[in-house]
């Protein structure tokens, strides 16, 4: 009997298991999984809502922003990611149970200033660093 030819085992390759079409910068901002890619979102901290306007002279609140979105495709051209994040995301694709995805976090922060009365009616102007997200990326 002719021995059936041994089926060649598919060579284990590191090919990505799913179509790895990266959403380019002209595609919509939803990645392949339908989730949004990592980007900055509006977050307004309202001193009015906090009931502080009887002692805060300025501002009435400020846009702090926050970062949210998928880091599934750190190679995406519209997303800035550290080399480590790219490596972590690739290793995550190979071992999803062992290595988490890179996460979407601020890459640039700036300050905001608040002008207010203290309990002795002195007027104080305080600059707070790292209170406003300027840019997001994958870490």
């Amino acid at each position, binding site marked *: 009997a002719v021995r059936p030819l041994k089926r060649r085992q598919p060579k284990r390759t590191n090919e990505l298991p799913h179509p790895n079409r990266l959403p380019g910068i002209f595609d919509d901002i939803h990645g392949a999984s339908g989730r949004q890619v990592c980007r900055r*979102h*509006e*977050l*307004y*901290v309202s001193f009015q809502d*906090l*009931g*502080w306007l*009887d*002692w805060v*002279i*300025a*501002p009435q609140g400020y846009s702090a922003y*926050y970062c*949210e979105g998928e880091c599934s495709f750190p190679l995406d051209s519209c997303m800035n990611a550290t080399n480590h994040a790219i490596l972590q995301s690739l290793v995550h694709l190979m071992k999803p149970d062992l290595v988490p995805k890179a996460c979407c976090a601020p890459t640039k922060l*700036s*300050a*905001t*200033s*608040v*002008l*207010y*009365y*203290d*309990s*002795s*009616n*002195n*007027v*104080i*102007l*305080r*600059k*707070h*660093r790292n*209170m*406003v997200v*300027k840019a997001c990326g994958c870490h």
Partner: protein
Amino acid sequence: GGGPDPRPPPGCPSLRLGARERRDMQREILAVFGLPGRPRPRAPPAAARLPASAPLFMLDLYHAMAGDDDEDGGSPERRLGRADLVMSFVNMVERDHTLGHQEPCWKEFRFDLTQIPAGERVTAAEFRIYKAPSTRPLNRTLRVSMFEVVQERSNRESDLFFLDLQTLRAGDEGWLVLDVTAASDRWLLSRNKDLGLHLYVETEDGHSVDPDLAGLLGQRAPRSRQPFLVTFFRASASPVRAPR
């Protein structure tokens, strides 16, 4: 998150914070701002909001600093000397030493400095007093000098420490800024005390002039022209929050 008035997605119970949770949230956010607590300004907000000299000046600084906020933006000369805290002190006691026509005559200002926060380094301090055109035809040039009261003496004049000298013309009008940064070393040492300042005015040939007659406005001036002290601080250690 989301737009200016984020609405919870349909079906999700809208989160309503109780009074106590709101207070806890406020305290958490105050802690992030490094604010000691929610101060209760003494004067009723309406009176406190009259255009007083210190808030008006500080509002200008706020707009300058806000323009400076973008770390990589803001032209260097607009930086407030990298200060991250500016305090204006308005609680002041003023005493005139112009009685009896003895020479020299001076004005004394005492400021309550107990509000100065710990761990901050003073990078600059200035005393601001409004100069109106003088009421009498004094000769043209006046010299205004400022001293810090180092030690009061019962039987003689206090020990003084020279701070600044400005020359102006009798007809000048506007804010006169005297540099009192040199006095700040002593503040941080004797925090519990207040700061005493003596203001002298004299003519070019050395005659002492009553500061009121020279047009320097004290506490009796309208609120938008009252003198105040401004101090610029730089946090020596960034206020790192204790882990919870």
